[in-house]
C-alpha cells in the first residue's frame, strides 16, 4: 500500500515540476506587470522603475523561476503586487472559501447523483428513468453560467432567499454559530447551482454503470443463490457500480475548478476562481501563477486520491 502511494507520488513529481514551469512561463509571457497599472500623474515613473528593479521584475526569466521555485518550496509564493501581502496569505483565505464551496458542491453532487443514478439505472426505461434522463439532458444542455446567472437572479434577487455576494455576513465573530450559518447560507446557492449542472455526468455515468452491472453474470449468480432483489441491488449491483465513481473523484475536482471560475464570478464569492479572474485582469501574476499552480497541484492530488481510494476499495488492483 505504502509502496503504491510512494510510487504514485513519484509519478506525480515530474507532473508538478512541469506544471510549475508551464505556469511560470505563461505568467512571464503576459504583457505588463503589476506596476504598469499604477498610472498616476503624481508618481514619478522612475520610482515605478525602481520598484520593478527591486521586485526582480527585470531579471531574466530563469533567475526569476529559480527564485520562485526556491521560495515556493519554503511555502513562500511571493508577494502579491496588488494586495501587498504574501500570496500564501491571500490564497489562504480564498482557498478556505473555495474548499468549502467545493466540499458543499461535491456533497450536493453526490447527494443528487447517487439516488437519481440508482433510480434511473435500476428502473431503466421506465417513466422515472425517462424523467431523470430528461433532467440529465437538460443539465447537459444548460451551460453552468446561464444557470448560475438565472438562479442568482431568481433566488437571490427576486425571492431573496439567499445572499447575493460574499462569503459571510459582515461583523460576525469567526467560529460562532451565526458565523457558520452565514457561511453556509452564502455558499449554498453557488454550490447548488454548480452541483445541479455538474451532477448530470455522474448521474449518467452511474446509470449506465448500473445497467451494465445488472447484466453481469455474477448478478445472475446472486439471484440463483436466492437473494431477494433488494439484496441483489444493495450488495452486488450498487457496490460494484459505485466503485468506479471513486475513480471519477479526481476528475470531478478538476471539473470543479473550472466551474468555480463561473460560479464565483457570478456570485461574487471570494474564492480561488474569483481571485484568479481578478488577478488576471490586474496582472497580479504572482497570484495568477500561484493560483494555477496550486489548483494544478490540487488536480494532481485529486487524481492521486482517486487512485489511492480505488486501490483500497477495489481488490482487483489492491496492492499486496
Amino acid at each position, binding site marked *: 500500500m505504502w509502496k503504491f502511494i510512494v510510487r504514485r507520488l513519484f509519478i506525480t513529481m515530474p507532473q508538478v515540476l512541469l506544471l510549475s514551469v508551464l505556469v511560470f512561463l505563461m505568467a512571464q509571457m503576459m504583457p505588463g506587470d503589476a506596476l504598469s497599472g499604477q498610472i498616476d500623474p503624481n508618481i514619478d515613473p522612475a520610482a515605478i522603475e525602481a520598484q520593478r528593479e527591486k521586485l526582480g521584475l527585470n531579471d531574466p526569466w530563469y533567475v526569476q523561476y529559480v527564485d520562485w521555485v526556491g521560495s515556493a518550496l519554503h511555502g513562500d509564493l511571493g508577494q502579491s503586487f496588488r494586495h501587498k501581502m504574501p500570496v500564501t496569505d491571500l490564497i489562504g483565505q480564498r482557498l478556505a472559501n473555495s474548499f468549502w464551496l467545493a466540499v458543499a458542491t461535491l456533497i450536493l453532487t453526490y447527494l443528487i447523483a447517487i439516488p437519481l443514478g440508482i433510480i434511473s439505472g435500476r428502473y431503466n426505461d421506465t417513466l422515472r428513468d425517462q424523467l431523470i434522463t430528461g433532467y440529465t439532458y437538460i443539465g447537459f444542455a444548460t451551460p453552468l453560467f446561464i444557470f448560475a446567472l438565472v438562479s442568482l437572479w431568481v433566488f437571490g434577487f427576486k425571492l431573496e432567499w439567499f445572499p447575493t455576494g460574499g462569503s459571510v455576513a459582515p461583523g460576525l465573530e469567526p467560529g460562532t454559530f451565526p458565523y457558520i450559518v452565514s457561511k453556509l447560507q452564502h455558499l449554498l446557492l453557488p454550490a447548488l447551482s454548480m452541483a445541479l449542472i455538474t451532477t448530470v455526468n455522474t448521474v449518467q455515468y452511474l446509470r449506465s454503470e448500473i445497467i451494465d452491472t445488472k447484466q*453481469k*453474470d*455474477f448478478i*445472475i*449468480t*446472486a*439471484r*440463483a*443463490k*436466492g*437473494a*431477494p*432483489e433488494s*439484496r441483489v441491488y444493495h*450488495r*452486488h449491483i450498487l*457496490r*460494484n457500480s459505485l*466503485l468506479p465513481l471513486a475513480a471519477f473523484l479526481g476528475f470531478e475536482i478538476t471539473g470543479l475548478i473550472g466551474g468555480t471560475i463561473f460560479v464565483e464570478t457570478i456570485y461574487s464569492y471570494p474564492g480561488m476562481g474569483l481571485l484568479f479572474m481578478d488577478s488576471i485582469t490586474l496582472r497580479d501574476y504572482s497570484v495568477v501563477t500561484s493560483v494555477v499552480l496550486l489548483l494544478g497541484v490540487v488536480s494532481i492530488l485529486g487524481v492521486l486520491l482517486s487512485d489511492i481510494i480505488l486501490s483500497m*476499495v*477495489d*481488490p*482487483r488492483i489492491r496492492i499486496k
Partner: protein
Amino acid sequence: MADTLLEVKHLNTSFRINDNYYAAVDDVSLTVNKNEVLAIVGESGSGKSALAFSIMGLHNRAKIEGGIFFKQQDLVGLPKSKLNKLRGDELSMIFQDPLTALNPLMNIEDQIGETILLHHKKLSRKKRKERVIDLLNQVGIPRPEQICEQFPHQLSGGMRQRVIIAIAIANNPELLIADEPTTALDVTIQAQILDLIQDLKESMHTGIILITHDLGVVAEMADRVAVMYAGQIVELADVHTLFEKPLHPYTRSLLHSVPNEGQDKLHVIQGIVPSLQHLPRQGCRFAERIPWLDGSAHEENPELHEVKPDHFVRCTCYRHFHFPAEREGWTHGIS
C-alpha cells in the same frame, strides 16, 4: 413416481425481438429424478441454457408458458419471495463461465457465505465460516482458510469453477443444474470437476441436470440424455441406448462427427443452426439440414414419440435416415 424431483411440462420460453416473441425453448417436457443425472446436449443456441434459466426463474424478460413442477410445486408464476426460498437451497445452479460468475469485489468467504446466510439466517458467523471451509474442502480446494480471504481474480479458472460449485452445493440442493460446468476448463481439471459432481450425486442423492455439448462428458456422466435441437428435444433416452442405438438423425450425426478411433473422415452436418428469428417453426426443424431426405419423410407436426419404453424421438424421419457417404465432406456453399 415418488422420486420425481422435477417435471417440466410443455415448457415454452420466448424472447422478445423487435416486438415479436420467438420461442427459444419450444414445448419441452422432461423429468428429473432423485439421484439421477439428466444430460442435455445440443449445439450452441439450441436452447439449453434458456431451459435451465427458465427452471431457475432467472430470465428477466422472457415469456414462460407451461409448467415446471419442482416437487409438485409449479415454479411458473411463483412469487419471487417463494422462489427465492427455493433457489440456492433446494434448487441450485452451476454456471458456465467461471470468469464472470463471481462478484469481483467480494471475497470468497462472503460469496459462498451469502448462500448460506440467505437460507439459514440464524446461523452464527462463526458457524457459517466453518461451513464455508467445509465446502471448500469438499470441492477440493487446498488451504481453504487462506482462499476465504481472497478475491476471484486471485484464483485460477479451475479454482473459481470449484468455488461456483461450492456455492451451488452449499445448502445440499435436491436439484442441481450444471450449465456446461467444464467447457472453460482443461481436460484434467474437467475430469476432477466431473468426478466431484458424480460424488455429490452419490453422497446426497441429488438430481442433476448436466448441460453440455461434449458427448464424451455425457457418456461419462449421464443416466439419461436429452438431445436438443433448435429449442426442441429431439431425442430422449437412457445413456446406453442413446450411444448404442441412437435414432434421430441429429443424434446420429452428432455422434459421427466426433473424432473416434479408426475414423478417417468425420461426418459433417450440412448447413448451420438457424438463429432464433429464423428457426423453421413448421414441420421438422432438422429437415433443412438433411435435404436429401424427401419432405414426405417428415411429419407435419413432429411429435416426441415413445418408440421404445423411455426412448423418445421426435419426427418420423429417423426411419428414413442413413448416412449418405457421397455427401460427406464440406463442399457445400451457403444454401
